[in-house]
C-alpha cells in the first residue's frame, strides 16, 4: 500500500487520508492495520475526558506545548458529537489549539462521533494506531463532553485523565460509578473558581474511601489551563503513571485487554454488518420490519425469526466458500 509507505515516510496528507479511510470503515482497513502493525506500541496515549466546557481542549493545547518543549512530537485526536438528526457535526476543538497549527511536530485531527455513543468516534482507536505508526511520541485523545457513562476512552488510552470543574457536583455525584472510576489522574480545572478546594477535598475523600491500590495513588491536581497553571505538574503526573504502569507490568496487561476488546468489537461490528446485508437482500428484513412497525409482531420474536432463519445461514456459508 503506497499510502501507508508514504505515511511511514512522514507524509502528513497520507496520514490524514488513512484516518479518513478508517472513519469510513473502508474495505482496505484490515490491510492497512496489518501493514502498520509492526510499527505500533511506541507512542504513549493519554485520554482526556470530562463534562462539556471543563477545559479539555485547552488543557490538551497547553500540555502539548509542554511536550513540545521536551522535544516530543504529539498527535491529537479531538472528538465532537454528531447531530442525531442531520448526521452533521460542528468540530470546534481545534479552535483552542491554534498555537500548534503550523508546528510540524503536531498533528491534529477532529473526529465526529457519527453513530458511536461512548464519547469517542469509532475511528479513534484506529487513528491512535495510525498516529503511533507515524512516529508520534504522544497521542492525546479528547472525548466529547461526557456525562457519566461514556467510557470508551479507557479502551483507547494508556493513561486516562478525568477533568472536572468546581461546578461538577457534590459528594454524592463523585461516589457514583462510571466516569470517576476510570480516572488515573483527576484534574480540577478552572481552579480559581469558587468551590475548587471543596471539590478537591471531596475527590480525595472519595479516593481515600475506595479500596487502596498499592501501585498507584490517583492524584487530584488543580489547574488553570488558560493561565498555564498546573500544566507542568499534569505532565509530570502522566509520566509518573506511565512509569508505574511499566514497572508493574500493568501497561502490557492493559494493552492486552485493549487488544482483546478491539478484537471482539471488530468481529461484532463486521458480523452485524454482514448479516444485515444478507437480510436486506433477502427482503425478509423489510417484511419483518414492516410487521414490527405496524405492531403486528413484537421486535423480539421478529428478530429471532431472522436469526433462526436457516436459509440465511446457508446463503452466508455459500458466500464465504465462494470468497475463499
Amino acid at each position, binding site marked *: 500500500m503506497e499510502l501507508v509507505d508514504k505515511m511511514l515516510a512522514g507524509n*502528513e*496528507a497520507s*496520514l490524514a487520508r488513512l484516518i*479518513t479511510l478508517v472513519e469510513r*470503515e473502508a474495505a482496505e482497513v484490515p490491510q492497512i492495520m496489518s501493514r502498520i502493525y509492526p510499527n505500533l506500541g511506541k507512542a504513549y496515549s493519554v485520554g482526556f475526558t470530562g463534562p462539556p466546557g471543563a477545559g479539555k481542549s485547552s488543557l490538551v493545547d497547553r500540555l502539548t506545548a509542554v511536550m513540545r518543549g521536551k522535544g516530543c512530537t504529539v498527535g491529537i485526536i479531538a472528538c465532537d458529537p454528531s447531530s442525531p438528526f442531520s448526521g452533521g457535526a460542528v*468540530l470546534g476543538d481545534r479552535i483552542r489549539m491554534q498555537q500548534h497549527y*503550523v508546528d510540524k511536530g503536531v498533528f491534529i485531527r477532529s473526529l*465526529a462521533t457519527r453513530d458511536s455513543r461512548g464519547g469517542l468516534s469509532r475511528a479513534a482507536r484506529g487513528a491512535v494506531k495510525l498516529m503511533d505508526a507515524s512516529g508520534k511520541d504522544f497521542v492525546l485523545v479528547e472525548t466529547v463532553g461526557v456525562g457519566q457513562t461514556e467510557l470508551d476512552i479507557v479502551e483507547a488510552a494508556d493513561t486516562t485523565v478525568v477533568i472536572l470543574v468546581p461546578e461538577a457536583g457534590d459528594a454524592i455525584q463523585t461516589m457514583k460509578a462510571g466516569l470517576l472510576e476510570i480516572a488515573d489522574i483527576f484534574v480540577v480545572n478552572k481552579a480559581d473558581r469558587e468551590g475548587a478546594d471543596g471539590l478537591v477535598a471531596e475527590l480525595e475523600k472519595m479516593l481515600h474511601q475506595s479500596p487502596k491500590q498499592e501501585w498507584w495513588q490517583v492524584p487530584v491536581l488543580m489547574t488553570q489551563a488558560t493561565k498555564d497553571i498546573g500544566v507542568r505538574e499534569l505532565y509530570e503526573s502522566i509520566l509518573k503513571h506511565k512509569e508505574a504502569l511499566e514497572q508493574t507490568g500493568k501497561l502490557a496487561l492493559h494493552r492486552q485487554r485493549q487488544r482483546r476488546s478491539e478484537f471482539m468489537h471488530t468481529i461484532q461490528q463486521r458480523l452485524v454488518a454482514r448479516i444485515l446485508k444478507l437480510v436486506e437482500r433477502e427482503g425478509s428484513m423489510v417484511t419483518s420490519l414492516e410487521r414490527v412497525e405496524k405492531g403486528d409482531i413484537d421486535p423480539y420474536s421478529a428478530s429471532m425469526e431472522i436469526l433462526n432463519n436457516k436459509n440465511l445461514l446457508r446463503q452466508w456459508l455459500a458466500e464465504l466458500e465462494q470468497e475463499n
Partner: protein
Amino acid sequence: MAEERKIRVLMAKPGLDGHDRGARVLTLGLRDEGMEVIYTGLRQSPEMIVQAAVQEDVDVVGLSCLSGAHKTLFPAVVEQLKAKGAEGVVVIGGGIIPKEDVPFLKDSGINAIFGPGTSVKEIANYIKENVKQN
C-alpha cells in the same frame, strides 16, 4: 462494509477580520445539511488554514473575508493547497467581495464566490454537486 461518505468542510476566517457571523451561520447550516464542519476560528494565516485542511482531510475549504484582503488571501490558500498536493479540495469564498473581483478570484482557482443574501441551501447544493465522491 458499507462505506459512509461524509462531506468534511473547513470553515476559516483568513486575515485580520473579526466578523464571523456569516461563517458561524454557514457552519451550523452545513451541519444541518449532514456535513462535518471544522471551524478554525478567527485571524488565520493561509498557512494555518492549509495545514488544518490537510490534517483534517477535508473536501471543501470555505473562506470568509470582510476585510477587503480577499484578493491576496484567497489565492494564497489555493496556491498552498496545490503545493501540498491537495488541489482536489473545493475552495469557496464569501464575505464582502465586490462583483468586479470575482473573475480574478475564479481565475486564481477559487471555485465559487457566495455573497450576502445567498441561502445556505444554495451553498450546500453547490458543495454536494462539486465534491468528487472519491
